[in-house]
């Protein structure tokens, strides 16, 4: 803007003036649908104040990657640094919550962790430049990359995405895959009228209850939901489960053992810990999780578990140990809670996560 003003000024023989600029800075107010936060939120997963639908802008495929770009109303969410959460408010001018969901086309494994960089242009003008979407967790929209953005009114937008490579260890049928960057592009037709058609429901009767909204229908029709298998359907020998309590910050842990899958080095038994949300079974990425395995009072393994993506296990934490026997004790210590941004209803859960002990 100053550049334009400068040009105008030099053109007018240096008769500098601020006139003519003010109209350039009008911004539209976002359509905000943000009821008050639930009072006395539990330190656990809870039913949020409201729930929103979403509009699919398009899908794209690049090698084994498949992507869906979608949007909803801009809404508040929470970021986390270590064990400090902070509420992100909707900013003036923000028009949509933009979401990118990524999955492996061959196995339908949803990818929760990577770099997702988005640039939006309209009529050749950059509207959003190189924004890195946050990894996010939403009760009805699952695991995705998202942020609130300010569009420039109705029209056709080109979205250029730079995604990947996936930094998480890849195992099983995913070993050796997803090692490249992908650069899908989308053409997104946006109208405010269409956004206003997106569903929006207050949950006044249920808000604050310890429960969660289910994944929306679109999640399973147009893209994989990212839900992990129920404990009984995990591969290997399911050895134990630590269910929700205050000490675990409402996280669920399921422990299974199997032969080390492709992509995981070492000989012995692969100890896999599936950390998940209650109710919807979404993965809990970006944790630091350490395990101590004891037998008869003696430590037989102690070390960090590595975040790993596997088609049947989904996103989980694992390590190769010599052996696991019935009656072993497994202590799980959460050194960092999941460093993933959260939509409403998840922000108070999975923050203060105490140690968990299981008898296998």
């Amino acid at each position, binding site marked *: 803007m100053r550049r334009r003003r400068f040009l105008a000024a030099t053109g007018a023989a240096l008769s500098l003036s*601020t006139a003519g600029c003010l109209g350039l800075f009008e911004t539209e107010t976002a359509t905000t649908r943000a009821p008050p936060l639930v009072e006395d939120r539990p330190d656990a997963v809870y039913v949020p104040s409201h729930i929103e639908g979403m509009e699919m802008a398009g899908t794209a495929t690049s090698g084994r990657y498949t992507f869906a770009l979608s949007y909803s109303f801009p809404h508040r969410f929470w970021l986390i640094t*270590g064990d400090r959460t902070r509420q992100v408010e909707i900013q003036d001018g923000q028009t949509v919550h933009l979401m990118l969901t990524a999955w492996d086309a061959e196995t339908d494994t949803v990818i929760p962790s990577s770099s997702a960089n988005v640039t939006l242009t309209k009529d050749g003008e950059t509207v959003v430049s190189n924004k890195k979407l946050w990894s996010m967790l939403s009760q009805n929209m699952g695991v995705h990359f998202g942020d609130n953005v300010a569009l420039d009114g109705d029209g056709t937008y080109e979205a250029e995405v730079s995604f990947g490579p996936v930094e998480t260890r890849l195992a099983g049928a995913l070993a050796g895959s997803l090692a490249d960057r992908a650069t899908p592009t989308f053409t997104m037709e946006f109208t405010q009228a269409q956004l206003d058609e997106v569903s929006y429901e207050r949950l006044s009767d249920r808000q604050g209850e310890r429960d969660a909204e289910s994944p929306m229908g679109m999640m399973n029709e147009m893209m994989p939901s990212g839900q992990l298998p129920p404990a009984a359907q995990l591969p290997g020998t399911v050895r134990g489960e630590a269910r929700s309590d205050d000490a675990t910050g409402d996280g669920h842990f399921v422990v299974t053992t199997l032969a080390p899958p492709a992509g995981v080095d070492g000989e012995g038994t692969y100890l896999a810990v599936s950390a998940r949300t209650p109710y919807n079974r979404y993965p809990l990425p970006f944790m630091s999780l350490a395990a101590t395995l004891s037998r008869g009072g003696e430590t037989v393994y102690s070390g960090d578990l590595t975040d790993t993506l596997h088609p049947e296990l989904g996103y989980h934490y694992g390590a190769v140990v010599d052996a696991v026997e019935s009656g072993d004790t497994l202590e799980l210590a959460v050194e*960092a809670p999941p460093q993933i941004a959260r939509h409403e209803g998840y922000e108070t859960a999975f923050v203060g996560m105490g140690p968990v002990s299981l008898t296998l």
Partner: protein
Amino acid sequence: MNPSRDGGISRRAFVKAAVAIGGTAALSACMGREQPTLPTGPDDPASLPDRQHAWNDSLRTDDHGNDVPPRHHVFAQFDYEGTPTPSAREAVESALRSVERAYPHSHEGLLLTVGYSPAYFDRFDADLPDSVDLLAPQALAPFEDPALDTADVGVHIASDYGSVVLGVEEALRGERDELNGVSVSAFPDSLSHTERRTGFIGEGLPAENQDVGGIPDSEPVPEDAPLYMGFESGFAKSQASEDSVTITDGPFAGGTTQQVSKIRLNLQQWYEQDDRFHRVATMFCPAHAEEGTVEGTGENLGDSNQMEAHGCPAHASDDADSGVVGHAQKSARAREDGEPLILRRDFDSTDDDQATVHFLSLQEQISDFVTTRSMMNGTDLAEEGAVGQRTNNGILQYMTVVRRGNYFVPPRAHRALPEPDPT
């Protein structure tokens, strides 16, 4: 949008805009605003330092002993057609000497370097000596894909006066025949101008020039910040010395290498979603955030970002396990005998109307930059810790490298279209 303080736009914003736009009209407008009163340069430019990059003795130092970079910058790129001829070489040297005669070698006057890319040296049959480590530019993180510079020549021009920077650029391009009362000459026609990058660094300039893409309309950049991200940089103890970035052996002893990355910034999240704890933790170190070490822009830190004092490099891995790791903390892991490997001479920019950093660094070998950048990526920390590839991993969340170029900056004696094997 601030209405201007004096009824027009402020002088420094105006000058920045003039440097960004360039050209004769911008120069005359800029001169009118700045009206610098400067002595001319030395009659015999051969008295200037043998090292082109020997700027520090000509810079202002602040109260803490930090070198203060010149406020205005242009990095102008040129292509050379064919194989350099003696007459072209002579014309280049004459042009450089002429502009050096016009202004003193100082932050208020003119500081410049001329560098040559791998593309330039490709035209010769002979190779550069082993003492010059000039790697081709490349992507330096799995998640980046910069376009790679193909220009042959890069000229870095710096001064506290935008009109000096512009005037020198115009002179080298043949648009001026006089500067500061001194007759000047141009580069030969065989050197064609291809691209210019412009920018600024110093208190007030980023705040005055925050009306660009990548910075939210709330005008969040602090008035006293020298850079868009709101913090000081270039602490004396985080900078390599000119001596240590200088090539010491071979025919090009006295030269150095230069790396220039064009980095787009998107600071909407930084300023509107992150809090101060997060900004200090990710820019500096989680310990700094916990202990409240950084006040305001960090001027209170003095001549050191205090990484060692807080043990930051050593506990980078533990911090990553706890969920956040700092940019300076990661970078401080790249040291040799306790000294940083690179000398930063970066500056911010409004090029293409987007908030941008031209990250220009000097190092003895390009591989020193590669090492530093590798530490800064923290890919090792992302693989084992709770930090993401970008998220909570220093300041990678907010930046995108869109171009990169590597140059060799020869010693002054060889600065005009050098051959790779001078005798």
